[in-house]
C-alpha cells in the first residue's frame, strides 16, 4: 500500500483495508487492527461490508431519546456502537430504532420462515397456567372461594388438556 491510511474509526494507522461492491458502488473502509477485531471483520464466518456500513450509519447520535433495555441494560449508545442487541426483549424495546435498518438490511421486515410450534405452545401453556395459579392465589387471599373453586377446576382441566395433547404427539 503506497499511502499511509488511517483507521476510519479511531485514526490509528490502518492495517485492514476492505473493498466491496455494494449496489454497484465501490466502497472502501480502512481499519486499524483493534477496530477490525472489534467489528468482527476478521471473523471467519464471513463479513459483509454493508453490515459495517449500517453500523457506521448508526453512529451519529441524532438527538433521539436514549433508551435502556430494562432486562439486559443495553443502551441506545451501546446498540449504536456495536450494532448488536443484548437480549430477546431488546427487539421490543428498540423496535422503533431498529425498523428502518431492518428495511435496508433484509428482503422484508416480517418473518415468513419456520415457527418453533412445540416451544411456543409450551411457553403459552406455562404462561396460561401461571396466570391461572396467580388468580387462584389471589382468590384464596381475598376469600372469594367460589372464584377459587372455578380457577382450581380450570387449572385441572387445562393440565389434562395439555397432557392429552402431549400423549397424542
Amino acid at each position: 500500500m503506497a499511502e499511509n491510511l488511517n483507521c476510519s474509526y479511531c485514526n490509528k494507522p490502518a492495517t485492514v483495508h476492505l473493498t466491496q461492491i455494494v449496489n454497484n458502488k465501490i466502497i472502501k473502509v480502512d481499519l486499524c487492527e483493534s477496530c477490525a477485531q472489534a467489528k468482527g471483520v476478521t471473523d471467519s464466518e464471513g463479513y459483509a461490508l454493508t453490515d459495517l456500513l449500517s453500523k457506521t450509519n448508526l453512529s451519529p447520535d441524532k438527538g433521539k431519546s436514549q433508551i435502556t433495555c430494562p432486562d439486559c441494560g443495553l443502551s441506545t449508545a451501546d446498540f449504536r456502537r456495536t450494532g448488536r442487541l443484548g437480549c430477546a426483549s431488546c427487539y421490543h424495546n428498540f423496535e422503533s430504532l431498529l425498523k428502518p435498518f431492518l428495511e435496508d438490511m433484509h428482503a422484508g421486515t416480517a418473518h415468513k420462515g419456520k415457527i418453533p410450534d412445540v416451544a411456543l405452545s409450551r411457553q403459552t401453556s406455562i404462561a396460561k397456567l401461571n396466570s391461572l395459579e396467580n388468580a387462584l392465589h389471589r382468590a384464596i387471599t381475598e376469600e372469594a372461594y367460589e372464584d377459587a373453586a372455578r380457577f382450581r377446576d380450570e387449572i385441572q382441566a387445562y393440565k389434562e388438556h395439555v397432557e392429552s395433547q402431549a400423549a397424542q404427539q
Partner: protein
Amino acid sequence: MIESLLNADNAELTQSTKKGAPVVLSTRLRLARNLVDVPFPERASNTQRSNVMTRCADQIGELTQMKNGAFFDVAELSDLERQVLVERHLISRELCESQSGSGVFINKDQTCSIMINEEDHLRIQFLKTGFSLRYLWKQIDRFDSSLENGLDLAFSSEFGYLTACPTNLGTGLRASVMLHLPGLVISEQMDKVIRAVNQLGITVRGLFGEGSDATGHVFQISNQQTLGESEGEIMARLGSVLKTIIDHEINARFKYIEKNRARLLDQIGRAFGALQNAHVINSNEAMNLLSLMRLAVDLEMLPEVNRPDVDRLFIECQPGHIQYAAGEGIEPDARDLCRADILREEFFRLPALDFDKVNKLV
C-alpha cells in the same frame, strides 16, 4: 484433545470417499438460535454463560443425531487446536476469541457442529461435500426441531428467531456454498460476477470469509438476508444464482481451453511437476497448485477418485494442520518444508496427467 477428530476415518470434508463434484466443493447451512430467558452471550454474565453452556450441552448430548459426538470447552483447547478446527470450518474465529463458557459439539463424521455462546447462544451448522441445499435443510430442520423440544428459544411472531445481530434476524439461516472458480478468475470475470450477485442479496467471500482472499480460486457464496423470506425462498434464490455461476464457470473454462489450450496444459503440467518435486511450498502457493489439480480432475486429466484427495489437501495444507501434523510448534519456514514433503508424497502416488483428454475436448 482433538486427536480423535483428526484421525476419524469418515470425516465428511477430509476423509470422504465420494467423488465430489466439479466446481462445487461443499455446502453449509447454519441456524442462529438463542434461549429466551438469558441475555445474548456478549451481554451475559460468566455465570449465565456457563449455565447456558451446561443447559445446551446436556440437551444436545441427548439427541440421537449427536450420538458418539464430542464436546469441547473452548477454554480447554490450545491455540493450535482451535486453529485446526477453524481450518476445518467446524468453529469460527469469533468462538476462539470468546470469553469463558464457550464450547462446541461436533458429531462423529464432522457433518454437524453446534457452537455454544458464540455471537448467539447456539449456532447450528450442517455441512456436506457437493451441492446439497435441500438435503441439508431437511437435516438441520429436524435437528433444530428436536432441540426445541427441550429448550425455549427466543422467537417473536413478527421478527422470527431473535439474534444478537439484526443481520441474522428472522430465519437465522445462512446458506453458503463453496465454489471453485478458476475459469472466472483467469478470464477476469469474477468482479463482474460479484457485482451482479451482490445486487441479488448474495454475498461472495474468500475461502475463510471476508478479509481472506480467494486463494485457490475458492469462493464462499451465501445469502445476505435472513428476514422477509422463508427458508425455502432464501435457498431457492441462492440455488438459482449458484446454478448461473456454475454455468458461467463451465463456459469460461471451455472458452479458455479453446483459446489458450497450450498455456493451460502448461500451467497444469508445471503445477503437477511442482507438487511432485518441490521442497518448499507456502500455503498460498499450495492452494493455487491444488486449484489447478482440481481443474485437472474436472477435465479428466486425473482420475475422478482423486478429487476428494485434492479437496482434503486444501484443508490439510493450511498452516494449523501442517503444524499439528508436525507435532510441535514449528516456524513458518519449517512448515513450508513439511507441506512440500506431504504434497510430494501424495502426488507421487497419482498416475501421470492424461493430456489427451483435453486435446479431445477441443
